[in-house]
């Protein structure tokens, strides 16, 4: 298995010199591409390395670096090695490139990312909402979106009980047991 991965890494770096290839700690191979090369790289992997299956497209929000990272997860049925193709995009006014022509199911993932992160895809003009309905605030999966504040503002909160007491102290008061030492830091005064 590890032998296979070494071979794959070697041949990948030979054939795709524009990408950096490395073996991941937890299995699989990681490939960093640039936005311009992405479609070519994916098509090449699909045609010549047997990566015929697109498992998922996921998006990571690197707020500190002001970037989005798309991760294309591919699977090879013969070698059974997972491949992660990563590409960094600008967070503000950036856009991804649609790969609907390679894998039709990419459409769903792209729509989801466009809806949840506000990252449009060139070539995927499918504007329909996927999960949300009539959403008009910041895309909710962005890290700077404060879901708690939003829900406080948008939805009614049921007020808590007036006599809100700590469960442990009530029980210990009733049964006369000591609160164990380990629980004291978590007990409300």
């Amino acid at each position, binding site marked *: 298995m590890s032998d296979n991965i070494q071979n794959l890494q070697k041949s990948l770096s030979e054939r795709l010199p524009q990408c950096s290839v490395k073996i991941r700690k937890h299995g699989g191979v990681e490939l960093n591409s640039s936005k311009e090369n992405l479609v070519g790289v994916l098509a090449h992997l699909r045609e010549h390395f047997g990566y015929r299956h697109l498992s998922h497209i996921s998006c990571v929000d690197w707020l500190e670096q002001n970037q989005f990272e798309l991760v294309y997860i591919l699977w090879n049925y013969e070698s059974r090695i997972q491949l992660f193709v990563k590409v960094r995009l600008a967070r503000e006014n950036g856009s991804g490139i649609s790969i609907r022509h390679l894998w039709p199911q990419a459409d769903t993932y792209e729509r989801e990312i466009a809806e949840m992160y506000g990252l449009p895809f060139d070539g995927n003009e499918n504007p329909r909402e996927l999960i*949300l*309905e*009539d959403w*008009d*605030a910041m895309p*909710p999966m962005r890290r700077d*979106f404060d*879901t*708690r504040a*939003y*829900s*406080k503002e*948008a*939805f*009614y*909160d*049921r007020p808590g009980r007036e006599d809100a007491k700590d469960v442990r102290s009530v029980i210990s008061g009733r049964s006369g047991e000591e609160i164990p030492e380990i629980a004291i830091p978590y007990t409300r005064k």
Partner: protein
Amino acid sequence: MEMNDKDTLTIVEHIKNFARRHSLFVLAYGTGCGAIEVPPTMTSRYDAERFGIVGRATPRQADVLLITGYLSVKTLKRVIRTYEQMQNPKYVIGFGSCTINGGMYWDSYNTIKVLDQYMPVDVYINGCMPRPESVISGFIKLQQLIKAGKADGWKKYQENLDWYRTNQKKVIKNWNMPDYNW
């Protein structure tokens, strides 16, 4: 004479009330994860049909709307529409802590937290999720309320329609359905 009239009326009312509380058609519309507790309630182990509780597939024929758990805003719109299509008298059972105070989705951006702000709830069943025993005990509570004539959420809904609509329209931004659905 008048006394007599009154008596016959109450007897008819008694019969109606008895039939209403012993024949509860439940709309088989699962909204949240609690819906998974409904099949065991209905089938061999807990057998809710003993109490005259049976599932119905359309809102027109149903008496009880089970809100089985969290409601996303998207589902809420459909649920309101469904509720308004049911025929009076109709009852709502809120199922699980999500309907009471948000439960584990209390800070989610897309689920409502307090169901009775948006539609009248006759009985709440707490638990996350409630077991079939508690579901049945909730139904029995509803039967007691009907017997006492207190399960009148549908009347409150008609009387306070404006208040409910304001609340509903606050979360449902695109209200592209008729204002009066039933």
